[in-house]
Structure formats: structure tokens, C-alpha cells
């Protein structure tokens, strides 16, 4: 008798699949490794630069005296403690930036791994196997926690080894607790992400909800640290809990309990909710579709704007807020630069003037980075339109490829102009109230000065989109990541001039602390424009590639 190929039906306990865990680990570990390395570099860069920028006890004391009582910087970046020591300065300079980046990373990671996988129907296959929605959720959560633990371990090792190498004097325990404090924000926001993924049906809604939570959390602790007797607000804010850990000097591990209990509760609740709901559903259901004004559906150009409007609004808020913060602290931070070796370093690259001018020059370079990210994001939306097949539907109507691409480029330029204009107004108003001596024309020129890197990145990305569409994201982010890495390496000490020149941000002069390098600006803009034209030329004749 022929043996049957159909397995016998088993009534015994079935071994559950571990596919969700493996998949979550694979996806999250990769980005965890990259971010850990970047975080480690930022921490070491802060520590090493402190040694060279504030070499004498008097300059360190001055730094301490200026910032310890500065309400503005204390509210924005957390209270400054022990700035006369490398450890204190390292925490002050890097901690807040890293925990905010860590939170954003965790938001995108958790919403993708939990709600995103469900939304794109990948989980249909998984749940049809030997597992349940609750088990799969639990496995993904464990996979994501794996990534956070790896981040903790990697940052610890990276910073400790760097500290030994550069004689920074950090103990292993100090490094481990600092890394733990940084990693605790991703842990918190992964647990919030897990919970939000049970509450909302769309990944976009999960991200928006978590974005608001992060913003509210930051705002609460900002008020708490503003010195008006509302310090207790820190206890209501997840970012405040992380701040209370006080890493490096005078650590307070007791607040870890708050973080662990809150994360544990959210994660347990997420699994419990997953066990109660149907696949593809959520506890709060799908929100009613929003009304879209018919004018946004009237042409491909209007629709192009509609597609990026949410993204543009987020960038508008982020860049304007950054501009506001930088302008607001320019005077106080500038006063610490005056008389320190930071000024000497900046003078070497042609930056001159008062401390606030020098700080403003550096701040505008930071804004240049944000503008470049914003423009690249819009080019990547074009590629996403193609890879999802939406472009097939659009280009099978009487819309020419050049009209579509031209419309997108117009929207891109208009959004840069709009965000630029808002920044000009915000910075000008703040600087005018602070009497920092920067007129409208000066602020206008400062913003005009930081546009070329973004134009260059967008132009290069459009070029790649035209010729090698599947590589658009890699090349675009590659240029930005490389440039930022070079800036960090350059901040660590002496670097090869050739290497430093490869960073597009190094080509931006720190105006108003230095005169505008029009030659670089024209070259970068030219590369951007030529890249766009060549990309458009190729896009007009190439195959549309919905892969």
C-alpha cells in the first residue's frame, strides 16, 4: 500500500511557530546595530570634543556657571549638572538628542513590526499557521526587546572602549548605566507602540498617536524643568522618567522601576488585547475617512501636494520648532563660546564675530541637515508611488511623465520655500526680541545659504530615481549618512581635508559667523539642477518599475 503524503491529524500539543519572533528580530537588529554605532559615535564625539574645546579648569567652570542657571537650556535639553567634568558635559550635550532619536526609532519600529505587518496582510499567513494573534504579538515584542537589549550592550561596549582609548576616565558601570538610560526610551516607546497597535487599525494613525505622546511627554518635562516650581510634572512624563535616571554622575536607578513597570504593563495589556480582537481589527476601529477638498483631486499637481501634505506639515512643525529653539538659546549658548576654544576652532574655518553669531552659524548648518532630509523624503515618496503601482494608474491617464515629475519637483521647491519662509519669520522675530543684532536680510541670507545641500541631495536622488529607481533610497540616505558621519568624525579631531570636503554640510559656510561661500552654493545648486534634469530625461523614457 502506498504511503500517504498527508500527515496524520495530531490532537496532541502543537509546537508553535517562531516565525514572528525571528522576523521581528531580523528587522529590528539591523537598525539597532546601526543606531547603536551612531549613538556611540555621538557620545564619544561629545566627550572628546569637550577635552579639546574646554581644556582649562577656568573655561569649564565658566561653562558650568552659564548653563547650570540657564532656564532656557535647562528646559530644552534637561538640567545641566557637573559641566566641569567630561561625564557631565557628555550627558548634557548628547543625552536628550539620543533619547528623542531613540524614541522616534522605537515608534517606527514597533508600529511597522506590529500594525504594519498586519496592515499589509503578512500576518494573514502567519496567523494561519501554528500560532495565534496573541502569541505572534508576544513573539514580536520579545524580538523588539532583543533589539533594545542589543542596543544597550553595544552602546556600553562602544563607549567604554572609546573611553579607554581616549582616556576619558568613564568606568564600565557608568557606561552601562548611561547606555541603559538611553535604551530605556526605546523600551518605553516600543511598549507604547505595541499598545497603540492594538488600538488603531492603520499604522499611520499609530505613528501619529505616538508622535503626539512623545511631543506631550517632552512638553510636560519642559515645563517641569523651567524652574517655575512644577518639577513634579517630570513624574508624569515618560521622557521625564528617563531624565530622572541622571546617568554618569549621581545615577538614580530607582526610576528604572517606573520605566519597567510602565513598559511591562503596556506590553502585557497589548498581548491581552491581541487575544481579544480579530486579525486586522483594532479596539478603537477604523476612523471615518476624512473629507478631501475636491480641489486636491482636480489635477495630478494638486494631488501631488495632497500626498505629501501630512509629511510636509510634520516637517514644517519640526524645522520651525528647531529654528525657534536654536534662536531662543543663541545668546546664552553664544556667551559660553566666547572665551572658549570653540571660538578658536570656528575661527579656523573662517567663522568670526560674537559668540551668538558663531552659535547661529552652527545652528543654520543643523537646519541645513533637516532641510536636506525633508527634500529627500519627498523624492522617496515619488519612488514609493512607483513601487506601489500607483504610478501605473496615474500614467495610464493623459498625464505625461514629465508633467507628473515636474509637478512633484514644483511641490518640492514650493515646500522648501514655504518652510524656509516660516523659519525666516520665526528666527527673525526671536532674534529681534533678544536684540541680537540680526536684521531680516541677514536671516533671509542665512536661510538661503542652507538650501543648496538639500537641493543637491534632492537632485542626486531624482537622478538615481531616473536611472536606477530601486537604488533611490540607498543613494539618498547614503549621501546624508556619509556627510553626517564625516561631520562627527571631523568633530573628534584632526581629519583629512579631502575626507571633510566630501561632506555636503561642510560646504555650507556658517553664516552669519562667516561670509557666504557663493561658489559652493552655486556648485551644489548646479549639481542638484543638473541631476534633476538628467533624472527627468531618463525617467521620461525608461520602464516604469513597480517593484
Amino acid at each position, binding site marked *: 500500500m502506498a504511503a500517504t503524503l498527508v500527515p496524520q491529524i495530531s490532537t496532541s500539543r502543537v509546537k508553535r511557530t517562531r516565525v514572528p519572533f525571528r522576523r521581528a528580530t531580523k528587522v529590528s537588529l539591523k537598525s539597532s546595530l546601526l543606531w547603536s554605532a551612531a549613538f556611540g559615535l555621538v557620545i564619544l564625539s561629545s566627550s572628546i570634543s569637550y577635552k579639546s574645546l574646554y581644556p582649562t579648569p577656568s573655561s569649564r567652570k565658566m561653562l558650568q556657571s552659564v548653563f547650570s542657571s540657564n532656564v532656557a537650556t535647562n528646559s530644552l535639553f534637561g538640567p545641566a549638572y557637573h559641566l566641569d567634568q567630561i561625564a557631565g558635559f557628555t550627558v548634557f550635550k548628547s543625552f536628550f538628542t539620543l533619547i528623542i532619536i531613540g524614541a522616534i526609532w522605537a515608534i517606527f519600529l514597533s508600529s511597522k513590526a506590529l500594525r504594519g505587518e498586519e496592515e499589509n496582510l503578512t500576518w494573514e499567513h502567519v496567523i494561519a499557521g501554528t500560532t495565534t494573534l496573541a502569541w505572534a504579538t508576544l513573539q514580536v515584542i520579545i524580538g523588539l526587546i532583543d533589539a533594545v537589549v542589543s542596543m544597550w550592550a553595544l552602546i556600553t561596549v562602544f563607549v567604554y572602549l572609546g573611553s579607554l582609548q581616549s582616556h576619558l576616565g568613564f568606568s564600565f558601570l557608568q557606561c552601562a548605566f548611561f547606555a541603559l538610560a538611553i535604551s530605556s526610551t526605546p523600551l518605553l516607546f516600543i511598549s507604547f507602540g505595541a499598545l497603540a497597535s492594538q488600538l488603531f487599525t492603520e499604522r499611520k494613525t499609530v505613528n501619529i498617536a505616538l508622535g503626539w505622546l512623545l511631543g506631550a511627554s517632552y512638553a510636560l518635562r519642559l515645563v517641569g524643568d523651567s524652574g517655575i516650581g512644577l518639577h513634579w510634572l517630570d513624574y508624569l512624563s515618560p521622557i521625564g522618567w528617563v531624565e530622572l535616571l541622571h546617568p554618569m554622575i549621581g545615577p538614580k536607578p530607582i526610576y528604572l522601576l517606573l520605566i519597567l513597570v510602565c513598559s511591562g504593563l503596556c506590553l502585557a495589556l497589548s498581548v491581552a488585547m491581541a487575544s481579544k480582537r480579530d486579525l486586522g481589527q483594532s479596539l478603537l476601529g477604523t476612523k471615518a*475617512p476624512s473629507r478631501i477638498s475636491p480641489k486636491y483631486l482636480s489635477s495630478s499637481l494638486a494631488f501631488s501636494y495632497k500626498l505629501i501634505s501630512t509629511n510636509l506639515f510634520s516637517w514644517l512643525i519640526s524645522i520651525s520648532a528647531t529654528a525657534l529653539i536654536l534662536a531662543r538659546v543663541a545668546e546664552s549658548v553664544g556667551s559660553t563660546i566666547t572665551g572658549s576654544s570653540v571660538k578658536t576652532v570656528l575661527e579656523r574655518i573662517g567663522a568670526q564675530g560674537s559668540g551668538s553669531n558663531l552659535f547661529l552659524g552652527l545652528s543654520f548648518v543643523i537646519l541645513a541637515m533637516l532641510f536636506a532630509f525633508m527634500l529627500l523624503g519627498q523624492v522617496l515618496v515619488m519612488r514609493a508611488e512607483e513601487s506601489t503601482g*500607483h504610478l501605473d494608474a496615474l*500614467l495610464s491617464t493623459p498625464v505625461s511623465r514629465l508633467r507628473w515629475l515636474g509637478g512633484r519637483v514644483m511641490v518640492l521647491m514650493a515646500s522648501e520655500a514655504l518652510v524656509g519662509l516660516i523659519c525666516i519669520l520665526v528666527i527673525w522675530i526671536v532674534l529681534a526680541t533678544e536684540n541680537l543684532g540680526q536684521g531680516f536680510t541677514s536671516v533671509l541670507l542665512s536661510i538661503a545659504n542652507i538650501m543648496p545641500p538639500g537641493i543637491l541631495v534632492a537632485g542626486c536622488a531624482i537622478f538615481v530615481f531616473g536611472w536606477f529607481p530601486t537604488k533611490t533610497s540607498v543613494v539618498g540616505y547614503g549621501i546624508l549618512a556619509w556627510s553626517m558621519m564625516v561631520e562627527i568624525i571631523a568633530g573628534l579631531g584632526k581629519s583629512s581635508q579631502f575626507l571633510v570636503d566630501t561632506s555636503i554640510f561642510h560646504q555650507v559656510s556658517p553664516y552669519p559667523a562667516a561670509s557666504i561661500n557663493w561658489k559652493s552654493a552655486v556648485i551644489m545648486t548646479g549639481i542638484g539642477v543638473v541631476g534633476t534634469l538628467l533624472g527627468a530625461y531618463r525617467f521620461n523614457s525608461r*520602464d516604469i518599475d513597480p517593484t
Partner: protein
Amino acid sequence: MENNSEIAIECKDLSKTYGKTVALDHLSIQIKKGQIAGYLGPNGAGKTTTIRLLLGLVKPTSGSAAIFGLDSKIEKVAIHENLAYVPGESNLWPDLTGAQTLDLLANLRGHSDDAYRKELIERFKLDTSRKFRTYSKGNKQKVALIGALMARSSLLILDEPTAGLDPLMEVEFRGCIHEARENGQTVFLSSHILSEVEALCDQVYILREGKLIESGNLTELKHLSSSEIAIQFKDNVPDISTIRGVTLLSSGHSHLRFKFNGDFNELLKQISNFPVISFFSHEPSLEELFVSLYGK
């Protein structure tokens, strides 16, 4: 030679290769205006590639494709003025509702029959207030179908248009295509649902591994395959083994069952001296034809 103004779609030696893979191999077809042309082939035969070439979404490696006399590679926009397209997989904008998607498509095309759109929404029983991402596969397909049909374009290019539709909606779809024919619209229907092609199409093109292997109207194509014949005689059976095109399946004292793909006159002449009680002839269905072609 056909008058060019009567031709809706014309491919001449049209080829497309991706690296070493030949997706379409020297395809030459002509589809007249007002015809419903079925484009058949198994998965990967090159049906979607042909459609993307016709739409100008990809460019040919060699040869040319023209719609209403306009080159697909050069005059894409002018061509798109006169056609509506339903993709095999309806990937439209997930955050738009069904109604917003239809509005957008109508605005992009620049023309739409609003009364017909309303009628189609009712006939296909589509709730247009929901977001596209929340639709089932069949409902997504309905949005794409209504979007194409409401334009009343001169040419409809439909790539697997009924994928995901339930049988009732398939009947509705067929009704719409018949109406399109009555309105003088040309329809290019890519499908592997043979009953659909059999019910709708005047002309059929069959593709295998990127090559056109058969074309013609259904009657012509059916003759390519054997009919199955069963005859019950009153007494003895004649010897038909000498007739060209006969493949004997079974025979008895007074009956014969055989496949026949030859000259019926010759067959009838041969059996005319033998009294017949019953004669059954079963024409091959398109499905049988398809299987016989791909079984080769």
C-alpha cells in the same frame, strides 16, 4: 490590407526582454475598432507585458505598438486620452475613498459620464464611502472597473478584470462589456478565465512563453482542436480508420466513439451507407482547446 483608420491596436514584431528573459517574442497582432479581443495565456505568458507596452509604461526592446495609429512609445499621452485601463492588481491610493478615487480618475482623464458612473456604482453594489485600503479584493477591483467603464473611452484595456469578483458581479461585468460593444468601444481583455473570453470575445489571441501561438475567432480556433463524436449504428459499423483526422477512442458491434479533426464531408460520405440510430458531436470548449494547446 486593413484600412489603418479601422485598426484600434496594432503590434508589429513587438518584443520585450528583461536581461536574458524574453517576456514577449515578436508579437504581431491587429485588432479592429469595435472588436472585443480576448488575450489568453497562462501566468507568465506575457499578457501583462503586452499591456504595459501598449500603455507605454515600458518600452519595447524591438518592434512597435500602436493604438489608433499612434505610437505607444512616443505618443503616450494622446493615446491615454482615448483609453481606460484596469490593472490586474488594483493598487490605487489607500487613503482615498472609493468616491474620491473615482473623482480623481475622472479628473485626470478629463472626461467621465457621471450618470453612467452612478449607474455602475449601483449595478456593482459598491459602497464608495469607504477608504480604498479597507476594501476587499473584489471591491478594489470594482473601483478600478467603474473607474475605467465610466470614462466611456474608445478603448478599454482590461488585465484580468474579474479577479476577485463574485459570479453575480461577473455577470454584471459581462453586461457592461456587451454595452461597450454596442457603443462601438473596442475592448482588449486579458484573461485566463476561458468561459469569460468564450462568452465575450469576437477574436482570441493565445500566447505561450511570450509567443503568439494561435489567433482567430472562436469558430476558427475550435476547428484546431478535435470534436468528439459518438455514433450508434443500427447494424454494423463502417471502417473509418482510413479517414484523415480520426482517432478512435472506442468501438463495439454497433457503436463508434472517436475524436475527429478532419473533413466532415469525407466522414459523412463514408458512413452514409450504414443506418444510424444516433449521432452526437461535441465541439471542443475553449478550455479544451487551451488544454490541448498547452498540453503539447
